[in-house]
């Protein structure tokens, strides 16, 4: 699978690239921010892009970048990584798309098998989200914007 990575933390980015390569994926390139990723993917095709939610352009460059990528490359799978599992981000991710999309905690992709399973699901068009965010409370909250 052809994978592109965008993550502003160098240590995590390097670890992810090594793990992807160990899993047998072809890492077409990596970037430290969303703009670099958009440039990279404009010249090199990929099957899935892995994006840190909280990276430049701040404050949530991963989401902004994903919107641009979904418009430019509708077939590109998107895997969002974050330190925090937040319903707020889940909703924003679902606004970007409900196909070929995933949302995982960063440490939860720390195995070759899990990473590969997640990428395969996304490449196959599925949606793979942080599970505990999908459980509903007995009394759901309501948000109203003025």
């Amino acid at each position: 699978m052809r994978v592109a990575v965008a993550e502003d933390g160098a240590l995590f980015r390097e670890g992810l690239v090594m793990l992807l390569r160990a899993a047998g994926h072809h890492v077409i390139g990596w970037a430290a921010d969303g703009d670099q990723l958009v440039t990279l993917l404009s010249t090199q095709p990929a099957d899935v892009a892995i994006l840190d939610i909280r990276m430049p352009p701040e404050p949530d460059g991963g989401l902004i970048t994903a919107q641009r990528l979904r418009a430019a490359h509708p077939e590109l799978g998107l895997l969002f990584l974050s330190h925090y599992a937040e319903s707020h981000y889940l909703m924003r991710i679902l606004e970007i798309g409900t196909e070929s999309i995933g949302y995982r905690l960063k440490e939860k992709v720390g195995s070759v098998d899990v990473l590969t399973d997640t990428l395969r699901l996304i490449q196959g068009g599925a949606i793979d989200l942080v599970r505990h965010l999908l459980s509903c409370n007995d009394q759901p909250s309501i948000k109203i914007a003025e």
Partner: protein
Amino acid sequence: MVFGSDHRAGARPYKPPVDACRLQEKDQWVCRRLLQRQLHDGAALRISALTLRLGLFRHDAPPEQAALQSCLDELQNELHAVLEELRDVAGKLYPPLLDQAGLGPALWEVADRMGRPVVIVESGERFGAAAEGAAYFAVAECLASLPAGARAVEVVVRRETDELMLSIFGVDARHVHLVDDRARPLGGTVDVVDGNRASAGTITARIPCE
């Protein structure tokens, strides 16, 4: 000799000026936000990177060395637990979502996690670290004090010139101190209206903001 007293002529207890106290309170919210960011960008990111390295070692470990594989799995699980603890600490310092997305999303998230029914009316406007931190923790503590099965609380956040106006409808008026403890150190004021029953009060705070 009398301990704890000062017999020097003219000695009096020092009280910092009110403005200095407010500035100090404002600074502590900025400091809390900074510490939360340091946790996120420093320790948490390093530990997350370590889990990936361990995953790589786990992949490379010979299949016949089951004990080594098991040990690496345990180490990864331990690091996951450490990250959970860091998230908990970060949330108590200054919730990352409050920092990144503001009061509306952060309040919605905390209410959802507590399983408290809440209606939030806000415009997405930002008010600065201190006012947002004070308002967030005031509302979170009010929600935490609700009895099980309580009716929905309505939270309205808006700006009036240079003040954040926070109104909480449908809470026990006796919990006004939870809001006052957060608002007053920043120079804020708090009003309370008793309802016709225990959980029908209204608490309104005006908090100076950016």
